[in-house]
């Protein structure tokens, strides 16, 4: 508890851990606010809190997730991430070694992304008042005027192509495995990754990227439904075109899950003008996070407000929102 009371122990925690790993001039100042030099123009500003259990999972941990998640929220809005903040709520008794490992991950992801964590906060709460560790990250990114409408979807038109950068479901299934909810073993890893390098290339090479969103909780289905409802357009997805991770596919078949509803942390849905879709795909495939990019459907003028799936068998059904957690089949 002493590490959260503003005294010597807290200062020790801040300097030995946070300042040590989040090395930059701004955070070293330890002022109440980070004073930032930003060029004139539009800023994107986002925040997210991370409460994942377990804290460590194949392919990442709560630290890498908290950095990549916020970077991605900026990037899919069309912004170049520049600064992050990091707030920690730590349960009394949480192991220092684990906290250090998490903070190191955050520093590494930020460094790889060329982004600085410039301010933060630490609270320690009594045992039982939080589940080990919660992290909040907020982020600021710079936006060019031509990208301001990407997050809104208002530029989306019938005929536009819908693109995903790889197979859905890897993060959610990797976390389920880490929770030991089932006994069979897989090689699955979370797809947790910074999408900005791929997105910056997309935006550089094409002026027809009309919409982007990362497919986190609620999966691909949530993004498609939000877009269809918000913009009152129809969406048709072809199940045969969706990239597949074979292990995710098999686990979903056994448990009765639909990969379209499973959380991702390194997948985005992009809507691109038909004329430039192939060009954008070619650019994405040259990046680490876009190697399995595919067109999976298109925007239509029919069934406005709805996303429809053409199944592998040829039948059609609605892709509805997720209602409650997916639960394994009983029999």
């Amino acid at each position: 508890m002493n590490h959260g009371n503003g005294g010597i122990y807290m200062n020790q925690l801040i300097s030995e851990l946070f300042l040590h790993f989040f090395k930059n001039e701004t955070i070293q100042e330890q002022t109440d606010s980070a004073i930032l030099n930003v060029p004139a123009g539009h800023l994107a500003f986002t925040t997210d809190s991370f409460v994942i259990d377990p804290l460590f999972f194949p392919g990442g941990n709560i630290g890498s997730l908290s950095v990549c998640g916020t970077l991605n929220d900026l990037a899919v809005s069309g912004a170049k991430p520049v600064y992050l903040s990091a707030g920690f709520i730590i349960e009394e008794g949480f192991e220092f070694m684990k906290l250090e490992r998490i903070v190191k991950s955050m520093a590494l992801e930020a460094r790889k992304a060329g982004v600085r964590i410039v301010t933060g906060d630490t609270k320690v709460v009594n045992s039982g008042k939080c589940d080990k560790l919660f992290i909040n990250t907020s982020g600021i990114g710079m936006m060019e005027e031509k990208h301001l409408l990407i997050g809104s979807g208002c530029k989306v038109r019938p005929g536009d192509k819908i693109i995903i950068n790889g197979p859905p479901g890897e993060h959610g299934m990797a976390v389920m495995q880490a929770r030991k909810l089932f006994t069979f073993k897989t090689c699955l890893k979370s797809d947790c990754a910074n999408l900005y390098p791929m997105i910056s290339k997309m935006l550089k090479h094409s002026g027809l990227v009309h919409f982007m969103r990362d497919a986190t909780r609620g999966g691909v289905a949530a993004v498609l439904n939000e877009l269809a409802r918000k913009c009152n357009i129809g969406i048709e997805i072809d199940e045969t075109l969706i990239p597949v991770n074979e292990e995710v596919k098999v686990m979903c078949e056994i448990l009765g899950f639909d990969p379209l509803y499973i959380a991702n942390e390194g997948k985005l849905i992009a809507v691109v003008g038909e004329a430039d879709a192939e060009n954008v795909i070619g650019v994405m495939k040259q990046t680490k996070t876009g190697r399995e990019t595919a067109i999976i459907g298109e925007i239509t003028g029919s069934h406005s407000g709805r996303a429809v799936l053409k199944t592998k068998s040829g039948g059609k059904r609605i892709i509805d929102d997720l209602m409650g957690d997916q639960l394994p089949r009983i029999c």
Partner: protein
Amino acid sequence: MIPEGMRYIDEFRDSALVSNISRKIGLISEKQINLMEVCGGHTMAIHKNGLTDFLPETIHLLSGPGCPVCVSSQQCIDHAILLGRIPGVILATYGDLIRVPGSQTSLEKEKARYADIRIVYSVLDALEIARLNRNHRVVFIGIGFETTAPSSAAAILQAGKDRINNFFLLSSHKIMPPALETLAAGDTQIDGFIAPGHVSAITGYGIYNKLSEVYHRGVVISGFEPADILQSVFMLVKQIESGHFQVENEYTRIVKPEGNSRALAIMNEVFVPADAEWRGLGIVPLSGLAIKEKYAAFDASKRFTVKVPDSLPPAGCICGEILTGKSKPTDCNLFSATCNPLNPVGACMVSAEGACSVFYKFMK
């Protein structure tokens, strides 16, 4: 003999194969017929894959009572809730059951009020909870048909062997044949049954003989992939058009004529048929599985004394008619606006394989 290297997912979802079977059905189907897909898994598969698009207008599919969550009575939920309120009791349940409304509340709401209710993926997880929490009494709510009953039986046998005396089963397990015969004898026009594939994997074919021999209905045991279901429909239409009724097996890669004798032996060692209440059907004689006296030490209904009140179904809910094929979900006045997955009134809207939930999810 299963061809080497055959995979069971993509091949049975192949659009050319599905279209071909659909065409074959169209060529022979002349009579207006009703086919009941008994199992909730089939209801889900049919609508998730858009298979009604492939059937001619002469064929109507009815949902049946093969969804264990959907047919769990309100009393069963109320009983579980009362057990969960006993100090020192941990309730373990399959996930879907947690949202089913009882007469006053649900397990989900009880969990929010600090009842120790844990979602498990297998009865063996519940047994493990009991093993690790010897100062608590762990009650597993056993629902499901012949597919899951053997695992509940196995858990009791294991509990006895390992002396895990704090493990109990509240059995709401049911068996299919009495319910199907009740439906066949009832007033819903059912010309044929798409029989449950995984139940049949345990029981074998014999449980359906009365449906064809006495009630003159077609029966085809079906797998769950699109090609399985459409092929089963084709086989049923052939039977009905010819008037030659029998029990056939489409799911040959999984179901054997004799079923799984080991699973049946375990089930019969622990359980004995007893009358059971089915939501929608009422009391069906000898359709439930009660724990034998020999294993009474693990029987939650005997080891805990609680008074479960009588209850009436919620006003306006027609789950019973839906489960017996008399109505479709869209016939219900509560469907969608009042009764939906966020605010379910009846059990058919709660389970992922309940007809109302499936209709809401895939067809609205």
